[in-house]
């Protein structure tokens, strides 16, 4: 993905949903993955010169990995706080930058790891579990 390419932004998440649906992934997981991907995608487009998104689909979970080429997040804990945003005015006018991106990613994933180094870049790994905990002992019952 290329930074500031707002034309294409949003197409990765809809494509991710299409792929997951085709693979027979549960609708609730598809829905959550779509939202996580959109927010991650927008962060790459709005704040970085570019990056890539990797989708991994397992029997028990879906993972989305977002890696970018900078500029990095100086204070990750601050960035996780709802309402905190460094978005420029033009992005806010478009309805981005309300400080809900990372909180939305957290709300729609079961685990969200953020590793960032200023001047180098950020890697975010979102894990969305496919099975309810009580089903975790059994194997293959979802058949996907």
């Amino acid at each position, binding site marked *: 993905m290329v930074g500031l390419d*707002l034309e294409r932004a949003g197409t990765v998440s809809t494509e991710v949903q299409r792929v997951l649906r085709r693979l027979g992934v549960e609708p609730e997981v598809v829905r959550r993955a779509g939202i996580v991907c959109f927010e991650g995608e*927008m962060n790459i487009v709005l704040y970085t010169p570019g990056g890539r998104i990797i989708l991994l689909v397992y029997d028990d979970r879906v993972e989305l990995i977002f890696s970018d080429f900078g500029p990095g997040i100086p204070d990750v804990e601050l960035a996780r706080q709802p309402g905190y945003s460094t978005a420029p005015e033009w992005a806010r006018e478009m309805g981005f930058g309300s400080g809900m991106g990372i909180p939305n990613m957290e709300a729609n994933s079961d685990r969200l790891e953020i590793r960032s180094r200023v001047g180098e870049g950020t890697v975010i790994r979102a894990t969305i579990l496919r099975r309810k905990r009580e089903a975790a002992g059994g194997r293959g019952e979802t058949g996907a």
Partner: protein
Amino acid sequence: MKLREVAEKLGLEFFVAAAPEAEVEGGYVSDLLSDVLAHAQPKQLWITHQRHLNVVAVAKLRELSGVVFARGIRPGPETLQRAKEEGVNLLGSKLDAFHTAGKLHRLLFP
């Protein structure tokens, strides 16, 4: 209620009628995309002033029944094209967001 019927009763104009038989169960008013992603519910009609391409992606991701642009706002050709490709209903209201939402609420929850 079907979107087609909502549009008739509220005097909404279809810009993209991808699925006019979609069910409308409620509405959501916001110009913040993350807010819509976090709080809008499937089958709601989203009333907004945003008209750029990403509106289509948000409506699709959230499985909304459609997007209503308030106050006579019209989306550009790229947004219309994307909505057609993605199968997202786009409509326009001559009224402002407050009055559009008010009428929709009265229609759905009399």
